[in-house]
């Protein structure tokens, strides 16, 4: 198989079934009055949000705003204490989560070789396919490191490995929690390329960042979160040029938002 075909094959899940942006599309996220309270402290306050099934959605906000929590609530890693999370028109469950993949700010790297890390994700779905694994590693530029212990990779390489593992699942939705934080510009660029390729192959991307420049490069729409509340949600160009709230204006202008 030609390498281009191989890459398309490893990234594409079932594009024909999800070409139309329908409300029942399992890539469309709806949060209905979702809240998270720990003890007597409310960390997320009645979040209401509807995201299209397509495009790259960036979640932005200052440190501690609740961006990552929102992502974990959407993926079900942190159960909401109130409200409802829907993917398409179905409440979040294990079946929905199996169609998604999450990449964390600090990449979770198993104590095995680079290749074995990708094999692990494939086997979690009952797949043993060395050719697909190698195509994924080649896609993220790590094929030459396949036999190396994964934890000896650089930070950027580890994050690319985490992306390869996520892509191994052929996810309909990829949730990325600041995957480029603290990485060098070359790694950031490579990761953004991989994300855009996944998006082009039909995967819905939900990407947490606090970098307006990155949002400008990637986002179709932006959700602005502050103090556990969804303050704004709109098209990226509109949000970046004319934010509605003072907090968003301050954030975009680099002022400290507390």
């Amino acid at each position, binding site marked *: 198989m030609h390498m281009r075909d191989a890459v398309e094959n490893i990234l594409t899940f079932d594009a024909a079934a999800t070409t139309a942006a329908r409300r029942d599309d399992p890539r469309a996220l709806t949060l209905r009055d979702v809240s998270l309270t720990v003890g007597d402290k409310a960390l997320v306050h009645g979040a209401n949000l509807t995201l299209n099934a397509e495009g790259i959605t960036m979640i932005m906000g200052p440190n501690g705003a609740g961006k990552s929590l929102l992502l974990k609530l959407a993926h079900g*890693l942190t159960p909401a204490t109130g409200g409802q999370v829907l993917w398409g028109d179905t409440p979040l469950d294990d079946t929905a989560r199996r169609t998604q993949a*999450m990449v964390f700010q600090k990449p979770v790297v*198993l*104590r095995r070789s680079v290749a074995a890390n990708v094999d*692990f994700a494939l086997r*979690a779905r009952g797949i043993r396919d060395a050719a697909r694994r190698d195509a994924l590693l080649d896609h993220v530029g790590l094929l030459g490191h396949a036999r190396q212990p994964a*934890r*000896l990779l650089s930070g950027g390489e580890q994050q690319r490995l985490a992306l390869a593992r996520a892509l191994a699942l052929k996810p309909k939705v990829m949730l990325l929690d600041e995957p480029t934080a603290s990485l060098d510009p070359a790694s950031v660029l490579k990761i953004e390329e991989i994300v855009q390729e996944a998006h082009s192959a039909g995967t819905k991307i939900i990407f947490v960042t606090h970098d307006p420049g990155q949002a400008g490069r990637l986002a179709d729409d932006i959700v602005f979160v502050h103090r556990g509340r969804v303050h704004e949600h709109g098209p990226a160009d509109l949000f970046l040029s004319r934010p509605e709230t003072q907090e968003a204006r301050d954030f975009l202008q680099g002022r400290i938002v507390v």
Partner: protein
Amino acid sequence: MQDFGEAFGLAFTLVLSGDADLFEIVALSLRVSLSATALACIIGLPLGALLAVTRFRGRGAVLILSNALMGLPPVVVGLIVYLHLSRAGPLGFLGLLYTPAAMIIAQTILITPIVMALSRQVIEDLHGEYADQFRSLVLGRWQMVQALIWDARFSLLTVGLAGFGRAVAEVGAVMIVGGNIDHLTRVMTTAIALETSKGDLALALALGLVLMVIALGVNALVQSLRMTAVRHAYA
């Protein structure tokens, strides 16, 4: 009683000459303790891993119990196994009392809590690191346990060696259930106790030397494994 200098000389002679009795005792000790360690790992590792990834009511009490069992007195274990394996006991029909099998059972009971409690701690720490990824992948409990045991393999080998160290140095349990029968159930520790009480220090010292070498070897192996793991960032 021999003087110490003479005893040391004789001990070295026994070791260096490859004395058959000495090496029969060493071989049986290793067979019993390695078998017990293998069994304890087969039982204790999955239990420790399961305890690490499972939350249930009463888990705290189970943790306290498993930690407390690490300090099981060998003679008590020996006594309990003896009561079960003796002719009047529930397992007397097996005819295992005063056999190496009984000694393996006693040592397995003695070190399984050690393997379980230490592996639980190792795996729980690792699970803290992997938990979100595992939940994201929607892994089943058994898949998690398998992955955690594999990824903690170097630390768990250290746990296994700690169990072996405890087993091979133990005397009370194997004395009670094995009976210290010459050419049948005599192991290093029971032989040392017997020869010392008889005043025959040469054999006792020779066995003590072998035991020390094994202890040092185990420690060297642990250290070497740890260095290998660190070198490959698998620790």
